[in-house]
């Protein structure tokens, strides 16, 4: 289970337009991300913590000479966190910034990696509005595969650090005002 950057040709060809998604587990829930954005999958290893970072930012690791930040998806979603174990993996993703100009490499901590599915555009349904319970902008949609529900994530929004920036800004203003 090491690097598996998918070949772009395979996915974009074909008239029925299928996208491939890598899914992983958080408890009983299964989440999917666009496989083209997955750079590699690695086991959990200790991180260097960043002072004053929000709780879902676990810290940074050395990924072959590059400093990569690690985000805990359970904490990001506000799901009860679990002890990391041998199965705990970090999915390293390529995330686009808000303006779409820069690409960031970030890792997400998930319970385990599950499957790779082909999901067509038609199979991908809009997620129902769940009000304040879930931040809708993190979701691209939902799909049913073998009677199981897979939540497809919009990783660019999910991994966006904009809300941390905003929180910090307001904190600064409060201190200065």
């Amino acid at each position, binding site marked *: 289970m090491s690097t598996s950057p998918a070949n772009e040709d395979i996915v974009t060809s074909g008239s029925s337009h299928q996208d491939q998604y890598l899914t992983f587990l958080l408890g009983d829930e299964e989440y999917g991300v666009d496989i083209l954005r997955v750079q590699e999958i690695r086991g959990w290893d200790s991180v260097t913590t960043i*002072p*004053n970072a929000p709780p879902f930012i676990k810290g940074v690791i050395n990924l072959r000479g590059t400093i990569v930040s690690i985000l805990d998806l359970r904490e990001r979603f506000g799901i009860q966190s679990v002890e990391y174990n041998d199965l705990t993996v970090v999915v390293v993703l390529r995330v686009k910034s808000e303006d779409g100009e820069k690409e960031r490499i970030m890792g997400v901590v998930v319970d385990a990696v599950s499957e790779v599915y082909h999901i067509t555009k038609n199979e991908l349904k809009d997620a129902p509005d769940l009000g304040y319970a879930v931040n809708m902008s993190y979701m691209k949609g939902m799909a049913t595969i073998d009677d199981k529900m897979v939540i497809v994530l919009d990783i660019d929004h999910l991994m966006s650090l904009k809300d941390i920036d905003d929180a910090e800004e307001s904190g600064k203003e409060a201190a200065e005002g």
Partner: protein
Amino acid sequence: MSQFHEAFFEESFEGLEIMESELLELDVGEGDVEIINTIFRAAHSIKGGAGTFGFMNVSEFTHVMETLLDEMRDGSREVTQFAVDSLLLSVDVLRTMLEAARDKTDVDEEMVAMRYAVLDGILKNEEGSVSATEVAAEPEVVSSDQPASDGMSRWKIEFAPHADLLMTGNDPVRMFRALSEMGELAVSVDLDKLQPLAELTPEDLYLAWEMTLTGKVTEADISEVFEWVEDECDLTITSLTSETVSATPAPAPELLASIAEDTASNIEPASTAAPVSAVAGNAPANTKTKATKKPVEAASIRVGIDKVDELINLVGELVITQSMLDQAGEDLEANAEASSNYDSEASKANAEILLRLSKGLAQLERNTRELQESVMRIRMLPISFVFSRMPRLVHDLSSKLTKKIELVVSGEETELDKTVMEKIGDPMVHLVRNALDHGIETPDVRLAAGKGETGTLTLNAFHQGGNIVIEIKDDGAGINKAKVLAKAVEKGVVSPGDDLSDDEINNLIFAPGFSTAEVVSDVSGRGVGMDVVKTSILSLGGSVSVKSEEGKGSTFTIRLPLTLAILDGQLVTVGNESYVIPLITIIESLQVDRKYINQVAGKAEVYKLREHYIPIIRAREVFGLPTEKRDLHESLMVVVEVDGTPAGIIVDGLEGQQQVVIKSLETNYRKVETMSGATILGDGTVALIWDVNGMVNVHKRKLSNNKIRA
């Protein structure tokens, strides 16, 4: 074709730089032919390249410039200040046109048209004066070159170009056209060398010509037509008028060669290589030209900066791997010593292996260090890249401010990191503007003060320790201390009673919102200048200071680290993590003694360090970690300097000092206020590098937050 575009643009921009610097060298009036030639060649290559790649607007525009330069070159046009200024502005226009072509954006057609019209105007309007100068110039030339009869002369020109002439971009047709403009021209072609069609290489030239030219021409006029191709042909010019046969192929080759040498030593070799060697080879020596050209071509290659950075990254990894191995080797040795008592036979063999291993490791360490140093050196460039912007700036500003200024530059070969270079340009431009605007006085003021009419601005760069020092020195009025002090009091930067040394007063100009200029000009003096200069220099890990003497001038001194890639750091621990503090910010480290701790307003703690009271900053508090003990007695304190004021930061542990490779935290995360970056330690883990400034800011904010709550 598009893959060559990048090279074309890079070369063109280099060409523009050459044109700019040479135009500034050009004296009004006489106009050094060699300088004009250099400018002409640069313009010519841009024109040619632009034509080839289909940037017709660029090529047309350059053509007008070229025409003007051509007339200056052959002496038919005087070099006026107006023409030089117009050419300089045209260089700017050309640069924006090229930038637009490169970025595929639209160019401001109106601006181009206007500039074009000005150039065209120069060419047309002054036609009358052209003939005047021509007439004036001619007798001189004629008298020196040839005893004139009635001014008319006949010349026989044997022109046998080498086969590769066309490959150099020269076209004989153009030369014939030029000759036919001088007088009556009769041409006959020699087809002897022409190959049968099957054996003919289309790019080679097999023809030779014999011409007779009748007209008011001198030998110099003719050889000038062939000036560009002298190295690529066999040329004989014979006078048919009198019996004195002159066979010198080129006018005074030694003289030209010596000029060429001068220019070569003045300008950066790589960019001017081609034109210089072309002139140096003026003597009839084709081989010589080739010999001088080749080593220059091999002297530098263009490499993308991303490739270099990748290499640096990999070498950084190698250094880490090496130190890991080194650690493992040491552990192994320690183990071996401990167990050597048990089995002597086996341990002897092991000891031998260990010796070999440690030898290999020592060698590996040496090699990696050297490798790292050389790789780092790839990113180093001479500071002339920044200094070369200044002559133009000084030229433009001095005419705008009606001041007379001489620019003296030294130490341009001093090297520094490309990234530092890119970021130091703007602050330097600002300091130079400032020196010209506020420092150096107008000629009448200078004369009244008993100084020379012309002010001197000196730029100097040199290495000192691990830093590069850049000095910007003027011999102007100096800083008016009374005015600065009054302003500082007015702005609340200092209080009226403060006792400040001269240097302290001078350095007040770097305080935010400070400008002492009485009149706000568009050159400088908006009051946003100096503190921005200081902030940008500080952000590069450098410092800036000023020394000034009223009436004598000011010297600004910028100190910068040679590279942003490596940093000398002090390793400390706070909580479970190791951190790196940049060594440059540390004044000292000490163990806290209870009796020097004082409380202020029940919250803030200060420490009495000799005569000064410094704020105590608990790193744990700044990082939001639980404080282990309230009592700081015997804790470790690192005294750092922020903006000239010391502060004591309490850490949990002090470890060794180490040189670390700086990595960006922002690339894959975001900016962290208390951290300036990250690095990878010997064991492969990440350690964050402190931004001491940010630490102090967070500390202050936490203090004021506490106050609000209390």
